[in-house]
């Protein structure tokens, strides 16, 4: 799988997890929300592992270091080339 695709999947899953986490703060007995939350965390874990194995660590003190230290590798998230394109998003400058 390509980097853009993996990153997009991970972004989507993490975004859902953040939202469900907020929901669960005030709905702790909602079984359905909790099950969904758990399944998203599981999926995100797998995508995160694949991404990191191929494209380097996402965190400087939680991720495995691999064969060589890739943390400072560019691009960084604030640089345009880091991020995936939304579908249908063309250059209009």
């Amino acid at each position, binding site marked *: 799988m390509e980097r853009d695709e993996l*990153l997009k999947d*991970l*972004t989507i899953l*993490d*975004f859902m997890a*953040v939202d469900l*986490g*907020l929901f669960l*703060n*005030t709905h*702790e007995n909602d079984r359905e929300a909790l099950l969904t939350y758990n399944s998203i965390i599981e999926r995100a874990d797998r995508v995160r592992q694949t991404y990191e194995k191929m494209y*380097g*660590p*996402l*965190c*400087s*003190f*939680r991720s495995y270091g691999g064969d060589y230290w890739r*943390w400072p590798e560019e691009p*960084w*998230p*604030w*640089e*345009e080339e*880091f*991020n*995936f*394109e*939304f579908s249908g*998003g*063309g*250059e*209009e*400058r």
Partner: protein
Amino acid sequence: MWIYEKKLEYPIKIKKTNPRLAKVIITQYGGPDGELGAALRYLSQRFTMVTPQAKATLNDIGTSVSEMFRLSPPSFFEALYHRIAPFEGQ
């Protein structure tokens, strides 16, 4: 503690430059009612909350709101201005 992850919570793509919009957004960012102030308020308010739900939620939204500071303001506003309009004070 907070943990930095080398990715964005929600990437955006700036397709068109818009200096007027840039001015509005920069106010939302650091102005008196902006996100910078909001993040600090949420994170301070959590200390005086009574219920665990309120503590957790203020902790989490204070964290989420801070997420926008992972945008690089210079590159963001440069993209929006596209080096045409010089920055003017509000």
